[in-house]
């Protein structure tokens, strides 16, 4: 996205770091979106919401959302069901479970703690 501004020999390092950051934060972001929503959302809808809300999610591609959704579902943090749709293909809807909401609260705390720590380290 901002690759034009970054010198060519720095870019791979930036890419790698962004990927590593995303690997943890995508799950938090997805859980937050679904935890806040009062109705189930499907993958495409979540992707568009994130796209609208901010710069394309932490430099990641939207295809990375689907495996994470599946993992959160497998871990019991999300419920899911498939519904046929009128306009397009059947859609898989996701919704945060009670466990998911509890975990979200804990993750939020961990995120704030990490962010404060990193900010402090960067400020010297």
């Amino acid at each position, binding site marked *: 996205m901002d690759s034009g501004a970054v010198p060519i020999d720095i870019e791979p390092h930036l890419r790698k770091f962004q990927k590593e950051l995303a690997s943890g934060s995508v799950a938090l972001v997805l859980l937050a979106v679904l935890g806040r929503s009062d109705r189930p959302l*499907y993958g495409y809808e979540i992707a568009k919401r994130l796209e609208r809300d901010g710069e394309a999610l932490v430099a990641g*591609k*939207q*295809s990375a959302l689907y*495996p994470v959704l*599946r993992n959160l579902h497998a871990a019991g943090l999300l419920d899911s069901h498939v519904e046929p749709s009128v306009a*397009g293909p*059947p859609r898989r809807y996701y919704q945060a479970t009670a466990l998911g909401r509890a975990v979200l609260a804990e993750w939020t705390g961990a995120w704030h703690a990490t962010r404060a720590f990193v900010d402090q380290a960067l400020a010297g």
Partner: protein
Amino acid sequence: MNASIPQNIPQYLAQVRDALAGADPAVVQDALYDAEEHLRAELAANPGVPESELLRRIATSYGSPEEVAAIYRDAEVTVSRAMRAPAPPARRTLAGRFFGVAADPRTWGALFYMLFSLVTGVFYFAWTAIGVSLSLGLSLLVVGVFFIVFFVGTTRLLSLVEGRIVEALLGVRMPRRPAYPHRHLPLLKRIGQMFTDARTWSTLLYFVLMLPLGLVYFAIAVAGLSVSLGLVAGPVVALFIDGVQTGLYLDGSLIIPAGIAFPFALLLGVVGLFATLHLARGIGALHGRVAHRLLVPGGADVAEVAPQAASAAAPAGAPAVA
């Protein structure tokens, strides 16, 4: 990158499939399902925009086929590392290797699968037998066509369910999503595809096979467990109950006195129990391969990618933020 820009969804999916060549077929199926769901949703959300134009946009939002493939390869490594039950510590001694089988979660999963397979085996067989005979009978009528479509659809669903059971209990990666239906094809084409699709036949074969296999698995598990547990429990029970004739009798005369028979029975029971566990783990591994081969399209190349790929794809200093 070098591949031409896809002009329509099937081309895009074909490129994802190509880019995932060599990956576990179950991963490929999941990746294709997710991509098709997203692409068709995009298409439905933007009526009037040509498909090729949408696919150009997709490359920057959802990702190009190569990027999608890379993401699924990476995600699979992470997931399988997280899901895989930790391997039991390698044991050096012969006794450690023999008794260590009880500490391997796969052993218990396989044992449970063997007991459970009697139920599922009978059900799959009955479903297949009824479905095939009704399909043949009704094929004389127009309704038969719809019944065949319905029946094949249910076997696909059942095969997905069986895949979940196999993955949970036997630890073999199976598809988590159904193969995407080819909705854009006319009905007759889709029906034709059902018959030419090798997976339809291999799924039916698997369901039929599950009856004899389930019976044998169940018999082995029950016989092995009850005989060895009986041998262990017998002497113990006899010690605590008075008035039980102890020792090994033949025609009413004592052949082996209790003092010799009990330790021997106990030893035999314990060895038998652990031998049964070994057998269960072996059968579980074997059956996992059979299920993968017959139920997953292109499943012949069983991919045990996880261990090597995990070490190769974990760069130095990857943070543990998962």
